[in-house]
């Protein structure tokens, strides 16, 4: 765990580049520091391996004050990946990856084995690449080596300073995906600096939005998107961001919260009345009337009601039991896919215990798009 306690950094003892910063990064989390240039995100990151040193306050790694650790020793146990990659052009790929192990005096066989392992891990064939030179590789391949080099001595903490921002969009996306896969496997504590909100939302377990040396909001990507703490974060996230990240929009965000329902004991006449009143042709048959938590038992549409208008017929006799439901946290992409595949116009949303929470209809989806488009035009 990395902990910043009231950390300030000043170059001229007047203005604080970093101002009384508190930040806790849990073990195994990927935390993204994001902000405009001059926000202090890079300085914050570089204080972790003492490339910059705080003017006041303390930084702890696993409870240990880093100012009490020899900086060389500290850095050798923290992986470091930079935007310009920084592979040494006069060393082979193997030599680059093995540099810190060499300085740590690992024996040759152990180094070689580790390097081959790492090349496999970043998706490059060891036999093919180990003896080549950096300038024979593409930008994306070079940064894979950069990541492999940072992992060489299996550090607990890895710092990444805009590692993908110099790559073309396709390669960038590939490397982001691979980083996520890698992180699933390795669970490192990663501090990742970027100015790209898409990247932050995609990679971060948590995002710290920074401005003027302070953290404005430190939260999960979902909360940053949905509950920006102030106008700055909202502006920074971008109004149309939700629209660009449909996987961040969940069923519970788009559902109508009070769908038309009818209880099991009601008659077809009542059903028609409700349909007319609520202007719908889709009723959810539920187990209990009123405002109590209800479970869906089936659905009623005009098809089920056809020729069954006598008052001795109850909903429980004619309800249609073949219907789909989705959980609250199903994302919009999945919702749309389910609706499309099953040709559904309506999709009930239930919580973990099966209680009805709402209903997604074609109208709710249409409204969402309409909102997004008007936001987009404003922005």
């Amino acid at each position, binding site marked *: 765990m990395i902990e910043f306690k009231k950390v300030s950094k000043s170059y001229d003892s007047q203005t604080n580049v970093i101002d009384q910063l508190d930040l806790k990064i849990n073990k195994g989390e990927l935390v993204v520091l994001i902000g405009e240039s001059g926000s202090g995100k890079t300085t914050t990151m570089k204080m972790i391996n003492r*490339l910059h040193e705080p003017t006041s306050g303390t930084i702890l790694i696993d409870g240990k004050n880093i100012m009490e650790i020899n900086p060389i020793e500290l850095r050798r146990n923290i992986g470091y990946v930079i935007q310009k990659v920084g592979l040494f052009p006069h060393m082979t790929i193997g030599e680059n990856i093995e540099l810190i192990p060499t300085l740590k005096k690992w024996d040759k066989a152990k180094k070689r084995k580790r390097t081959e392992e790492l090349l496999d891990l970043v998706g490059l064939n060891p036999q093919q690449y180990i003896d080549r*030179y950096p300038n024979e590789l593409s930008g994306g391949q070079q940064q894979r080596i950069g990541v492999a080099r940072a992992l060489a001595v299996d550090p607990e903490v890895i710092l990444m300073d805009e590692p993908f921002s110099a790559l073309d969009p396709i390669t960038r996306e590939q490397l982001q995906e691979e980083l996520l896969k890698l992180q699933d496997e390795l669970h490192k504590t990663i501090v990742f600096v970027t100015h790209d909100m898409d990247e932050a939302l995609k990679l971060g377990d948590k995002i710290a939005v920074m401005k003027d040396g302070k953290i404005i909001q430190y939260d999960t990507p979902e909360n940053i998107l949905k509950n920006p703490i102030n106008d700055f974060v909202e502006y920074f996230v971008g109004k149309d961001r939700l629209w660009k990240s449909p996987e961040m929009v969940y069923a519970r965000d788009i559902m109508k919260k009070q769908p038309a329902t009818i209880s099991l004991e009601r008659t077809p006449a009542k059903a028609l009345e409700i349909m007319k009143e609520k202007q719908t042709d889709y009723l959810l048959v539920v187990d209990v009337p009123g405002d109590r938590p209800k479970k869906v038992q089936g659905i009623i549409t005009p098809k089920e009601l056809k020729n069954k208008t006598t008052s001795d017929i109850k909903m429980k006799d004619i309800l249609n039991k073949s219907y789909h439901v989705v959980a609250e946290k199903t994302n919009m992409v999945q919702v749309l896919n389910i609706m499309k595949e099953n040709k559904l116009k309506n999709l009930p949303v239930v919580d973990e215990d099966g209680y009805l929470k709402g209903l997604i209809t074609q109208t709710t989806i249409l409204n969402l798009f309409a909102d997004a488009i008007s936001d987009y035009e404003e922005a």
Partner: protein
Amino acid sequence: MNQARPGFIEFFMGRLDQVLSLTIQHLQLTGLAVLCAILVGLPLGILIARNKRLANPVLGIANIFQTLPSLALFGLIIPVMGIGEVPAIFVLFLYALLPIIKNTYTGIINVDSSLIEAGKGMGMTKGQILRRVQIPLAVSVIMAGIRIATVINIGTATIASLIGAGGLGDLIFRGISSGSNNMILAGAIPAALLAIIVDWILGGVEYLVTPKGLK
């Protein structure tokens, strides 16, 4: 000149021993001077690359020696060191300093700063960065400095004959004073060839020491 030409080969062959020994002497003068310049200039170049405040004064002083006309510098040294090989080597040494210091300095400070940052961030010490990154990457530029210094010195060393240091300049100046074109050419041609051949050889060395990943 017209009459001198047909007899040149015979003249030259007749004095082959003398030409060879003067050539060797010439090479010794140059070689010793450059060697001393490397021993002083290389560490000095590294030093000023690491303490940039020192760069301007050191390069400024080295530049003065380079700027002075060589004949004037030889003249200035006589009252201090007298004549002969030692003062000649000293002057040639001063001449060779600037290209070596300057190229060492430039080669090191021009190493891509992101490499230094990467090295530092990974936990390399300043010395390790110097030895494993900066010098290997600067070595071809440093070698180019040595090559320039050597070639300049082969030329300047012909003038060293004036203060009694010997070398191929002996033949040239003796030829001038006795009006013998053959004698002048017997000194000038080997001196010119020497410069070209040494330049060519050191060019090869420069290529050889360039790290493989940079070729």
